[in-house]
């Protein structure tokens, strides 16, 4: 196993741990807003670590570019969804 493989494996495992943390947060946190916080931040950090780990093994630059593109789109999507759900939940409280 080369150093690159080891770094990639470490990044992938760290990413999976962040996904687990996001799910635990979704189950354990007390209200919608803190659950949103767990989901949209921790899960996207985990996805970023996965993308970094996979990019280390990618064959060519276009593949890396596509992986990064997927992550950026997921970030934008999470930000939008978090904003919409949070404002919806806040209207429900009033």
């Amino acid at each position, binding site marked *: 196993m080369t150093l690159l*493989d080891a770094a*990639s*494996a470490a990044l*992938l*495992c760290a*990413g*999976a741990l962040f*996904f*687990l943390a*996001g*799910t635990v947060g*979704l*189950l354990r946190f007390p209200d*919608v807003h803190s*659950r*949103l916080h767990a*989901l*949209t931040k921790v*899960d*996207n950090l*985990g*996805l970023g670590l*996965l*993308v970094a780990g*996979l990019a280390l*093994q990618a064959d060519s630059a276009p*593949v890396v570019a*596509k*992986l990064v*593109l*997927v992550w950026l*789109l*997921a970030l934008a*999507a*999470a930000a*939008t*969804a*978090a904003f*919409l*759900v949070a*404002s*919806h*939940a806040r*209207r*429900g409280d009033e």
Partner: protein
Amino acid sequence: MQALALGLALFLVLTLALGLVRVVRGPTHADSMLAAQLFGTTGVGILLLLAEAMAMPALRDAALVLALLAVLAVVAFVRRDTP
């Protein structure tokens, strides 16, 4: 390396299944909708891992589409559930 990617994909599926508990518990519609967001992000991660493990580059395109559709589901929910 492929075994690791496959194993991690399986692990992510298990965390997804765990997240389904929140759909059942609720208590509000927004809480259940959060699980859709979880499916979006985790699903993208699973697809990227599978693309690497099974040498199927097309799955990366599927991941791109899933990331987009997950947010559309949330938008549709907010539009419909708002009084």
